[in-house]
């Protein structure tokens, strides 16, 4: 009997270790709803998480693109403007690390929304991308209607963005990198100006790709 208990303890410890190491999952952010529906005559309650709604904008190549082209992709989103004197350079420097880590990975994208669409035309965004050394279609710089972009930022990606003539460059915005999964759910938000958090994001992208 004693032996049996000992064995049981050992098995328990091992299985606890195992689930801890192999089953790291990322949390879900935003609002959630419990949805009850009837499947095959049985009542089932499911959790529905907040998702990013559909949008269609123009990328740096002048192509119309948007959420539809992101179906089945994991992507990182941020909000910036090309003439930004404050936190954008350090954000984009850190985003370049993410770009270089995953630029050859399938189903991965980086989406940078400009919050100054009047100035940041696709041509200007293309020039900016070139100067950053960004080529191909892994990293899109998107230009869209200002109200739509601001709405998306604050309501969907949960990043605060406002126009403020007293701020350096004329805009106030948070430097979050938002991680979106293949089902368009928010799985993480990281301070894009903090190298440590950006390294965490790179690790979390790898976890998410295993899902």
């Amino acid at each position, binding site marked *: 009997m004693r032996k049996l208990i000992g064995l049981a303890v050992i098995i328990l410890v091992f299985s606890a270790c195992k689930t801890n190491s192999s089953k790291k999952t990322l949390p879900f952010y935003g609002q959630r709803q419990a949805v009850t529906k009837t499947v095959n005559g049985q009542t089932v309650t499911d959790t529905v998480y907040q998702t990013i709604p559909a949008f269609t904008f123009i990328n740096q190549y002048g192509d119309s693109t948007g959420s539809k082209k992101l179906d089945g992709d994991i992507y990182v989103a941020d909000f910036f403007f090309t003439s930004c004197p404050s936190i954008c*350079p*350090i954000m984009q*420097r850190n985003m*370049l690390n993410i770009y270089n880590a995953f630029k050859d990975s399938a189903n991965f994208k980086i989406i940078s929304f400009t919050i100054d669409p009047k100035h940041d035309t696709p041509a200007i965004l293309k020039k900016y991308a070139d*100067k*950053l*050394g960004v080529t191909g279609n892994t990293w899109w710089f998107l230009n869209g209607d200002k109200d739509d972009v601001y709405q998306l930022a604050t309501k969907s990606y949960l990043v605060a963005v406002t126009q403020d003539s007293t701020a350096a*460059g004329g805009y106030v915005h948070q430097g979050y990198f938002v991680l979106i999964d293949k089902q368009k759910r928010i799985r993480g938000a990281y301070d894009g*100006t903090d190298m440590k958090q950006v390294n965490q994001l790179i690790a979390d992208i790898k976890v998410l790709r295993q899902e």
Partner: protein
Amino acid sequence: MKKALSFAICFFISMVIYSCQNEGDIEFGRYYTDGAIVYQSHCQNCHGDKGEGLGDLIPPLTDSAYLRSKKNALACGVKNGISGKITISGKLYDDQMPANNISPIEIAQALTYIGNSFGNKLGLINGDEVNSELEHCGSESH
């Protein structure tokens, strides 16, 4: 006795030289360490913690020859910003650097830090130099 006297004189002179040098070192050290803090809060976001710049958007601060050739224009550049085409380390840059609302002494500290980091060796750039350069902003072109 003569020998002792000459030794004393030698000793005295070397002490004077040593202490002078030391005072210069202390002043340099003060500018440099304060400059590191100014750099972190006003320059590092764009130019990077190693002065590496960012792609073709923001030039690095590692071109010692350029910094040396523009030494007298650096203070005005930091204060008022820089626009137009510049070539640094053989690469053309054509974006704007914004103006910085910082005091002349902070400019001197930052320049001493930049001028003696990232492989540069410009020596001390003190507050007096910066003040006199700031009086003539605009006459030097970048």
